[in-house]
């Protein structure tokens, strides 16, 4: 029996700016089990990072506010707990790795001290004990000479090393949930491969649930068990990775998969881009945020957001196009033509 770690229902986070209300996250729901990896994929402005920040209750208020929904972590609603309780939960139960390893470590403290501080704060260990644990953690995430490295400042670390340091800090209190927000976007591919390896090792060792936020569909295919595709603050499609990659139902998912050049395709195929420009978050339609760019738009699309429709085991989609019609359209798309046969 798998253990449910996180159950997010109808989460909405809005930003109240001078120019108007930005509905950065708009009614998003998902779950995360122990040992499971959820990939949240989307382009800039899709709301994936704000979703992560909402989980941690790190939304700057003002201008932002979580305006609705529940985030239940092992039976407790994180949106109902006090600030003090939340800061106990943060780091201890839910930890986060940020995109930019250059700015997420404090430049004026030694790396070892920064990790030890987390251990002292959450586990009440002594200074000496926590320092020793920090060194062990650095060794675990594959930093050579951890004794020496713990005594150094972030600027003495390379980008990949800093991200390893961040992972060490994140796992220091053995959290149930690890949220990784574009953890390798700032890194080169060979370093990315190393970091993904470390994250997976740590997940196996600690039985963590991982939320991997990324714009890279390759990273999701590599790391995730299930995936949620976001656009303009909404979830448009979600489900097990195989379902979403091989049986996608949402025109936006088709667009994403079709616009990617791929290493494993040997005949040159012209890419099928998604036409138009990314949406203006201040002027999102009430309906499907992809309307306006969607080539198969129906009159109803812009006015009303389509309800969740289950199209396979755990595979949900929001789209007004009737299922039969969707299959027909998809079979005609270059990327899915040959896949339909297999």
């Amino acid at each position: 029996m798998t253990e449910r770690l996180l159950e997010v229902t109808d989460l909405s986070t809005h930003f109240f700016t001078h120019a108007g209300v930005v509905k950065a996250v708009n009614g998003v729901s998902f779950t995360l089990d122990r040992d499971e990896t959820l990939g949240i994929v989307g382009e800039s402005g899709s709301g994936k990072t704000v979703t992560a920040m909402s989980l941690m209750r790190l939304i700057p208020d003002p201008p932002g506010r979580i305006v609705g929904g529940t985030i239940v972590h092992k039976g407790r609603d994180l949106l109902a707990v006090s600030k003090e309780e939340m800061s106990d939960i943060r780091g201890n139960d839910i930890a986060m790795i940020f995109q930019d390893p250059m700015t997420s470590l404090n430049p004026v403290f030694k790396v070892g001290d920064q990790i030890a501080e987390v251990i002292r704060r959450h586990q009440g260990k002594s200074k000496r004990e926590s320092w020793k644990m920090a060194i062990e953690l650095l060794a675990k995430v594959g930093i050579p000479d951890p004794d020496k490295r713990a005594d150094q400042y972030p600027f003495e670390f390379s980008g990949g090393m800093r991200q390893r340091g961040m992972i060490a800090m994140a796992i220091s209190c053995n959290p149930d949930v690890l949220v990784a927000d574009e953890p390798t976007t700032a890194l080169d591919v060979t370093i990315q491969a190393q970091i993904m390896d470390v994250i997976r090792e740590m997940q196996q060792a600690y039985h963590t649930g991982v939320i991997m936020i990324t714009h890279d569909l390759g990273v999701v295919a590599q790391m995730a068990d299930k995936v949620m595709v976001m656009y303009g603050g909404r979830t448009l499609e979600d489900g097990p990775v195989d379902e979403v990659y091989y049986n996608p139902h949402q025109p936006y998912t088709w667009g994403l998969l079709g616009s990617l050049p791929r290493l494993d395709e040997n005949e040159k195929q012209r890419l099928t881009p998604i036409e138009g420009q990314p949406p203006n978050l201040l002027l999102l339609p009430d309906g499907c945020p992809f309307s306006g760019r969607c080539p198969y738009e129906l009159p109803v699309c812009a006015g009303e957001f389509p309800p969740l429709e289950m199209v396979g085991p755990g595979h949900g989609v929001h789209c007004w196009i009737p299922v039969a019609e969707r299959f027909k359209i998809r079979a005609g798309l270059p990327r899915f033509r040959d896949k339909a046969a297999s």
Partner: protein
Amino acid sequence: MSLLEVRDLKKHFPIKSGVLKRTTGQVYAVDGVSFSIDEGETLGLVGESGCGKSTTGRVLLRLLPATAGQVSFDGLDVMAASRSTIQRLRRDMQIVFQDPYACLNPRRTVKNIIAEPLRIHDIGTEAERKRRVFELLETVGLTAEHAERYPHEFSGGQRQRIGVARALALNPRLIICDEPVSALDVSIQAQMINLLEDLQKELKLTYLFIAHDLSVVKHISTRVAVMYLGKIVEVADSTTLYVKPQHPYTEALLSAVPIPDPRTERERHRLILEGDVPSPANPPSGCVFHPRCPRMQPDPCTKAMPTLNVVGTAGDDHEVACYFPTLYDAAGAAPASV
């Protein structure tokens, strides 16, 4: 004959320190790079950050002075050219930059930005230039209405189109594309790639396509050169390079790229390189890749940098700089290690 020939190009940056700003070292950003590009082809230049790919692009245009080496464009010696010759050369050689936010002057209208090369080269009357700007905007998928607007009114993808329009203004023959799509979201990136491909066909352009994204480079390039720490370690036509890589760095690089296909990903055996890229200010002795190389032998790898040698059958144009390149059997089957 190739349009662009580069022989043993070097660009070293001095490291200055102390009050007297004495030179205390060198950053070997580009250290002996040779390649050629034929008319109408696209040469992809890939590598990780700090490998010298962007510096190479800039030195070719003489936006930075070279430390050593020869560059000839259509038979003309670029490195020895006078100021006026260089200016004429730049009509034929243009560049598209990576950052669509930084490469356009925020205080000038799009019309001014695109017409600037025409003004500098004193081409046409004001009215003719205006007409050319409209024409260029249409070419890159924008409209004449956009001409009077300012860069901040555009999204990243649209700005990159403006950058391309500016590069096209003088009807160049070669465009150096320095990471032109890496700042863009995937859906917009595909628009840009298709645009570059269409323009190449229509205007018979030659591209030097500099990027770190191997999938994009494979898609757009005829041939690909892989750089590591200021040196080219392997060059081949794009299919050969991706199907039969011979340099261990190329293999690791390809293996590190996640493929957006869950089944393929589960079946893949990933080669993970240890450690980080060494500093170009203090490159390792011998082969620059030897500290991270799984095939390293103290002799000869730590002794001397291997030269780029043609491998495989003649006419294959596959060159690799490695003492122990991966060999493929006659059937083209990959060895067990890949």
